[in-house]
């Protein structure tokens, strides 16, 4: 009897890979934040029971292969055009849940117009913005969100505000628009922030499911390779360097 009880306890699964996460090995580097956000999205899609109506749009950048890792319909978009592709998909099939997954160069440089106008139209989509303060996939170039003084491949002496301007705060920018219903900045650099991120993503998806309109979740995310840091240092860099410039708060929740 004693033995049987013990076996039962051992069999109890306390954590497992979510069924919507594929078995495929990620191409992401050690310490990258994408994998965490993928997992949160997969869990939420599962919890909401929307796996059979979700379309995930992957951006140009490290996130482009996201469609291999989360087992829902996937769509590619040209660099910066994710919100436009999302608009087309959602307008044709409003019953689908459309997730626009984007990076900082994609969302705030080449796709700034698409970002602002999709938000301004109040498209009923959920935008997940991974802000890692540089272009990861192309090898670590300066992004619109690179911090002043941040050294990248294309700002080898540190970002100069005089030459490159100041980093753009996406949430604050979008918060000047009337239409968005939800705008929040979170991070994946601590357990507390990961829990906040999941809550924000949950709200963003719930808004879409309830046809409430445009939701925007910015996630400060580690890029140890691009930053030239060990993963633990990268976590600290977010807290010490990024968070002071990019406050982790909710900007709108209507």
């Amino acid at each position, binding site marked *: 009897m004693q033995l049987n009880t013990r076996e039962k306890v051992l069999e109890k699964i306390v954590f497992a890979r979510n069924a919507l996460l594929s078995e495929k090995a990620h191409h992401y580097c050690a310490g990258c934040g994408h994998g965490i956000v993928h997992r949160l999205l997969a869990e939420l899609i599962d919890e909401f029971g*929307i*796996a*059979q*109506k*979700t*379309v995930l749009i*992957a951006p140009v950048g490290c996130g*482009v292969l996201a*469609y*291999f890792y989360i*087992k*829902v*319909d*996937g*769509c*590619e*978009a*040209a660099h*910066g*055009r994710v*919100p*436009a*592709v*999302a*608009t*087309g*998909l*959602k*307008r*044709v*099939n409003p*019953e*689908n*849940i459309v997730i626009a997954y984007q990076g900082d160069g994609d969302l705030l440089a080449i796709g700034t*117009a*698409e970002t*602002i*106008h999709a938000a301004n139209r109040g498209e009923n989509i959920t935008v997940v913005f991974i802000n890692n303060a540089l272009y990861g996939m192309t090898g670590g170039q300066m992004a619109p969100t690179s911090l002043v003084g941040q050294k990248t491949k294309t700002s080898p002496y540190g970002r100069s505000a005089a030459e490159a301007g100041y980093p753009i705060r996406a949430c604050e920018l979008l918060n000047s628009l009337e239409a968005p219903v939800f705008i929040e900045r979170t991070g994946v650099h601590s357990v507390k922030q990961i829990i906040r991120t999941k809550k924000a993503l949950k709200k963003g998806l719930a808004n879409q499911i309830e046809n409430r309109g445009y939701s925007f979740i910015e996630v400060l995310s580690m890029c140890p390779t691009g930053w030239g840091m060990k993963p633990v240092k990268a976590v600290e860099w977010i807290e010490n360097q990024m968070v002071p410039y990019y406050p982790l708060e909710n900007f709108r929740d209507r």
Partner: protein
Amino acid sequence: MSKKVFMKGNEALAEAAIIAGCRYFFGYPITPQNEVPAYFAMRLPQVGGTFLQAESELAAINMVFGASAAGARVMTSSSSPGISLKQEGISYMAGAELPAVVVNMMRGGPGLGSIAGSQGDYFQAVKGGGHGDYRLIVLAPNSVQELADLTVLAFDLADRYRMVCMILGDGFLGQMSEPLVLPTPSGESFDKSDWVLDGAKDRAPRIVRSLRLTPEDALEKLNLRLQEKYHAVEQNETRSEEYMADDAEYLMVGFGISSRLLKAAVHSLRAQGVKAGLFRPVTLWPFPSKQLAACAAGKRRVLVVEMNAGQMVEDVRLAVNGSVPVDFLGRMAGMLPEIKTITERIKNYAA
């Protein structure tokens, strides 16, 4: 017989698209095609469709990408400078094998150019325009009636081959009004259920993409499949028209609005005792090379007339392959060649 209506080219095009089942239009204002989005903005809400004025041509073509991936019949229209911007999305759609109809009501170029009709975008439409090895099906109507008819055909061709089909008109064709009988839908239906994105309900998830990085789904495999498809289009979809060409000694070749001038030139020359005829490619890609070579055989001279510096003339020369001398007459910058200039040129050959 159906009732004749009197419509502007751009509006007949839009109504024909609605007849063909198009319920989604994404566009950005540019002259001389502004009647197209205006007509859709008025009509689509009446038929349960969606008109959306995009923030740019880039956004418009990528909304088309999304709508097509979702399985819709979808159109965008623009004019030359705007079509240059749409090339990005067109290349991505070719790579992802998404169907759509793109309209270019050409205006004078390069640059901002002018707002008068032109044929300066032949190369862009037919030879590529965007990056990578891909083709568009390019239809060149020469009347408001044909503009409407070819619009219905364009949607079928796009769906049949999962390609972007371009209607290459010009500012004159879009702006002029003519009587026409509105077309009827072809009735052909296309099963898109094995590739559209609508949520993986009771099926495995799928991806619409053009990125090919791994050996298992090597890009070359996609390229080879695309080329095979393009070859089938060349075999099946080449269209052209001949007018008084059988007994002609002099063959004129023109597409779109230029061919209307050439028809008048044929009449004028025939009235003056010169045996002239016309060959008109209706599909610019696939180019009707075989038909043209057969038609041009034995003629004394071929004269290509275009509203550009000489673009299609290169394909005409390739088609006749030196069997007949090929000459060119053109005007640029949105100017129309005069019929008298054309007939004088032909009469000079005769003399």
